[in-house]
């Protein structure tokens, strides 16, 4: 099967700024693909190159097997939902949605019919005569979505489409977008800086930083096996315990303790053991561990979250977070209590820079 989008060795420079640095990326037909990274890492630039609004300085870009390198945006079978919607303020919702069809020369009555159908699809029935300024943020977002979808693009590009919405609406739209994507079977390339959004919505995701592509994989792969320190830290919460590689199975932590940690890095490499707060276990020092890795510490403070408690535990050389679910009968550790933090070796990953 040909990939929906195939990016090979793409670089984009703006003067001295390298916005996108030699990335390779393949997006399959029909998948929900999230492009995740902090602000300024090159997500929008990558998306704009797929759309044709920016041309790569270097590299090859194929859409369904066709090289599109410097093809203008109006010749590409993709459509974009812009970050700030970019709705045409002088046109009402219907004319906004019908714009693409009109430009493609679809006859008036067909264009109108299809536009109205798409307005129904995004649940804006009856709003077709409203100008963008007469619509709420969420409704504008739906018009922007309809305006792109009505053209039946082979790939839909979305640039932080939910960024401007409040939390409740955002969660609602996340579900709706995901459903829509599954029903239509069209590839969505979804740019976001919100790791939770990327994890919950995507089939596969890419993590970017500083113009570089750090890791591509399913949300589970990326959460469980982060490729490097940045990814481990950026996706979810984690504690990074500094140390050095001893052998392929062991890491020597900063305090000299040896813990199990699998890696194929050469001996002596500076690494960190990434220990997620919910995967660490807190117990009294004298407890005999069935788990193999343990470090002694002292409880420094406790944060009550309702469904869980987060303990800040001081080690000799750092403070880590441990999250304990608030189950009935869960032991409470008061600040100042000496404790032992233990974990299952298979629950951690060893990451380098």
């Amino acid at each position, binding site marked *: 099967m040909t990939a929906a989008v195939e990016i090979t060795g793409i670089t984009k420079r703006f003067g001295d700024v390298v916005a996108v640095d030699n990335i390779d990326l393949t997006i399959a037909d029909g998948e929900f693909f999230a492009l995740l990274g902090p602000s300024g890492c090159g997500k929008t630039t990558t998306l704009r190159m797929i759309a044709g609004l920016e041309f790569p300085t270097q590299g090859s870009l194929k859409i369904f097997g066709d090289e599109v390198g410097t093809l203008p945006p109006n010749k590409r079978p993709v*459509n*974009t939902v812009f970050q*700030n919607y970019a709705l*045409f*303020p*002088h046109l009402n919702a219907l004319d906004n949605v019908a714009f*693409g069809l009109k430009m493609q020369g679809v006859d008036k009555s067909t264009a109108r019919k299809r536009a109205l159908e798409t307005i129904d699809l995004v649940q804006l029935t009856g709003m077709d005569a409203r*100008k963008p300024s007469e619509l709420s943020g969420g409704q504008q977002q739906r018009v922007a979505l309809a*305006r*792109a979808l009505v053209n039946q693009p082979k790939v839909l590009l979305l640039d932080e489409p939910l960024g401007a919405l409040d939390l409740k609406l955002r969660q609602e739209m996340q579900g709706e977008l995901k459903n829509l994507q599954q029903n239509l079977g069209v590839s969505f390339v979804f740019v976001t800086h919100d790791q939770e959004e990327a994890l919950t919505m995507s089939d596969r995701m890419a993590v970017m930083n500083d113009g570089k592509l750090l890791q591509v994989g399913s949300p589970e792969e990326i959460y469980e096996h982060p490729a490097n320190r940045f990814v481990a830290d950026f996706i979810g919460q984690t504690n990074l315990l500094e140390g050095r590689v001893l052998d392929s199975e062991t890491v020597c932590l900063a305090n000299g303790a040896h813990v199990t940690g699998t890696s194929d890095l050469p001996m002596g490499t500076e690494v960190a053991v990434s220990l997620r707060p919910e995967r660490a276990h807190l117990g009294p020092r004298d407890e005999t561990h069935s788990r193999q890795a343990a470090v002694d510490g002292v409880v420094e403070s406790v944060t009550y979250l309702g469904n869980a408690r987060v303990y800040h535990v001081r080690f000799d050389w750092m403070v880590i977070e441990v999250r304990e679910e608030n189950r009935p009968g869960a032991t409470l550790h008061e600040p100042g209590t000496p404790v032992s933090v233990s974990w299952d070796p298979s629950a951690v990953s060893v990451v380098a820079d």
Partner: protein
Amino acid sequence: MSRLLNKTANKTAGSAVEPHGWTKGVLQANGWLVYAFFYAPILLLVIFSFSDSRNVGVWGGFTLDWYEGFVDSQQTQAALWNSVKIATVSTGISVVLGTMSALALERFKFRGKQVFDALLYLPIIIPDVTMAVMMLLFFAEFFDVLNAVFGTELRKGFSSIALSHIAFSISFVSVVVRARLAGMSSHLEEAALDLYATRWQAFRFVTFPQILPGILGGALLAMTISLDDVVITQFVTGPGWTTLPVYVFGLIRRGVTPLINAVSVVMLMASMTLVALSLLVERVRNVGTNQRRGF
């Protein structure tokens, strides 16, 4: 300017930051004084244009003779038509060129852009007299060269006046249209391209409707300035091409009569109509984009 008028028109509800007490009194008095300063001369002009006395400033009873004189006079009629023709042609051409330069400056990158940008404002800054002398020199040389090389018989007149007016109007149009373009996100044009529009269609269906109020505002400004101009026109005019303001200026030298008042009132009306039109354009635009339909 329209915003200012709106503010005074519909008084906003009192708030903590608004002036009150004696501060408010003083500000209000100041307002009235400024208005009196503006409009008292205009009022006098209008009143004395109906005065049945050859001496301006002496009320000799009501008459419409001066207006009749204006309508009957071949010279005023000719001057009026000259003004209208020149204003129409120079506005038409400067709107197209001014809009194009505004688009180039706001939307494209090109070599020498900054220099072009700075030079475009020059006609607004240069004193009229300097501009007039420059134009005079230019046309003297330019027409001579053309006549010598191509055997044409170009003389100062319509084309020299129209070209001079175009030369300064472009700057004004370009400034107004640019302000409008700067307020319009370039993402709109990108969205149009993304939705299969060609560059021309993106301009035709998205950019143009967005900047139309700016273009109309610029056109009205260009037209007003062209209709008003005395200094530059006087320098570059030729036989048979006296414009109305130049004609009035000539009349004054021969002694002020209420005929001048009448002509001035007509010109005033024309200017005010243009300003009213530009305000109307602004209103229509605001209704179009900011308010619900069917209000």
